[in-house]
């Protein structure tokens, strides 16, 4: 990568910003060295790692520190392929070496314990404090076990959520492997809004694919906490074609709503207590909210998510803090890895321009979510977004889902593009 040079710096400020040069107005205060602003990015998932990498690409002169507790990151996208036995955990493992060695991001393996917005610093579990000029928060989600009786996070080894990939993915895969042929897999699917809207239904698809091959007498029941889901027509078409009646979907209003989970007996209680659904393996995906750290930092609204000015993803609560990815309220954009990735670029461009004293970049964003119905049967939803009436909104006439009734060749092509998408987006974020 290109080294920062004095000549380039002068060129930058000469072109755009007398303000930054003379140190008046809203010029950033310098925390590290005479000329370098410091941006701290919290969270090394799709949003945070993208923001960190693109900040250095757009403004190589910035100091960028990425704080992430784990040395290895397992992408949630692709974790359903692990559960279906198509790929191993290694396939969805990402690391931070390239961000440091190729892109000049300083990666700190630590956990943020507190944000001091007035003092413009974050405290880490190690005791260190990092001063920032701009703070980018991409902390992801936490679970709301308080919505359902009988189950808590402490039960996640017996009844995994597997909605943050890693050990939870391994646990659920092991349970599926141990389940006898003829067993029942029950998924409790979450209410809106939640991370990866098509994710529960791709998961069920690929578990069905595994059962079809290895345990064909088995049954799958989805107890849904809502009455509809992403790409529903496409999934249902694929399920009928590929899996017959193996998968049963119960909407919230027709037997799906779960009042209580009897963890010891691996049973979901529905229909106001009148129906008990017994499972051999249960996957309880709880209701969700933004991660605790942004609650503690005072960046959330009453619904538990972070309101932002959606043209920049700058927090509505603090001018020097940006929140992106699943934790943010992002208009029409879904809580997806691809959304977080494209938002990371918007944030990087916004901060880059602001610190250089330039006008904001007109926002633009896209999303493409692929799902596999079988390893050779892919479906997608796509959208292009623009900023309109204060929100990121889908461009009229663009986007939408794959056609129903498409040929098997079309589905195969989309499955191939699914694999290409994974390779491409992970290289874009962590490569």
């Amino acid at each position, binding site marked *: 990568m290109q080294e920062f*040079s004095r000549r380039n710096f002068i060129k930058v400020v000469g072109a*755009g910003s007398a303000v930054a040069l003379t140190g008046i107005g809203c010029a950033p205060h310098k925390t590290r060295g005479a000329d370098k602003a410091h941006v701290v990015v919290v969270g090394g998932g799709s949003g945070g790692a993208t923001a960190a990498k693109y900040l250095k690409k757009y403004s190589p002169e910035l100091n960028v520190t990425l704080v992430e507790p784990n040395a290895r990151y397992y992408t949630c996208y692709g974790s359903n392929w692990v559960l279906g036995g198509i790929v191993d955990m290694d396939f969805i493992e990402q690391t931070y070496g390239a961000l440091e060695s190729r892109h000049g991001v300083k990666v700190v393996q630590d956990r943020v314990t507190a944000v001091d917005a007035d003092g413009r610093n974050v405290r880490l579990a190690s005791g260190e404090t990092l001063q920032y000029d701009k703070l980018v928060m991409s902390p992801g989600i936490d679970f709301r076990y308080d919505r359902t009786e009988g189950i808590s996070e402490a039960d996640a080894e017996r009844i995994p959520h597997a909605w943050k990939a890693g050990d939870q993915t391994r646990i659920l895969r092991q349970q599926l492997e141990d389940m006898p042929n003829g067993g029942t897999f029950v998924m409790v699917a979450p209410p809106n809004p939640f991370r990866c809207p098509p994710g529960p239904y791709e998961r069920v698809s690929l578990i069905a694919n595994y059962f079809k091959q290895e345990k064909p007498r088995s049954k799958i029941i989805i107890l849904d906490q809502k009455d509809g889901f992403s790409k529903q027509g496409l999934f249902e078409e694929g399920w009928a074609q590929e899996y017959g009646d193996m998968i049963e979907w119960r909407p919230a209003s027709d037997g799906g709503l779960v009042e209580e989970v009897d963890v010891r007996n691996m049973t979901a209680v529905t229909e106001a207590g009148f129906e008990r659904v017994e499972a051999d393996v249960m996957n309880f995906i709880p209701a969700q909210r933004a991660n605790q750290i942004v609650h503690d930092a005072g960046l959330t609204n009453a619904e538990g998510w972070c309101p932002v000015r959606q043209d920049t993803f700058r927090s509505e609560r603090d001018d020097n803090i940006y929140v992106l990815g699943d934790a943010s309220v992002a208009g029409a954009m879904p809580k997806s890895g691809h959304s977080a990735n494209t938002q990371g670029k918007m944030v990087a461009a916004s901060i*880059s321009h602001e610190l250089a004293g330039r006008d904001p970049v007109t926002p633009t964003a896209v999303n493409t979510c692929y799902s596999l119905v079988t390893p050779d049967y892919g479906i997608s939803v796509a*959208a292009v977004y623009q900023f309109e009436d204060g929100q990121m909104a889908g461009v009229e006439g*663009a986007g939408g889902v794959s056609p129903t009734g498409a040929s098997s060749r079309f589905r195969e092509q989309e499955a191939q593009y699914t694999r290409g998408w994974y390779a491409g987006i992970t290289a874009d974020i962590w490569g």
Partner: protein
Amino acid sequence: MKKSRLTFAGLVGAVALAIPFAQATAGDEITRGQLMADTCVNCHSAASAEAGGAPDLSNYPSSLIVSQMKAFRDGERPGTVMDRHATGYTDEEIEALAAYVGQ
């Protein structure tokens, strides 16, 4: 609907600086064309092409990207997903992003 807010100066800049963005000068202005182009690389890169996915467009002539995006958008070329993406962009936007994606 008219969507582009690309300024004349921005458009000229995008075309004149049609170089891969990794080679851009430190802290250069980021145009809307560049930001749009940076959303293409999720699916269109050496990594995606190697995995058998969408083609790497970095060596494609910009003019070819323009003509194919318009063909996807206008229904003249069938696609799996590109038709759904291409309908999100005006002529100006396609030209601005193609200047960055290709060469």
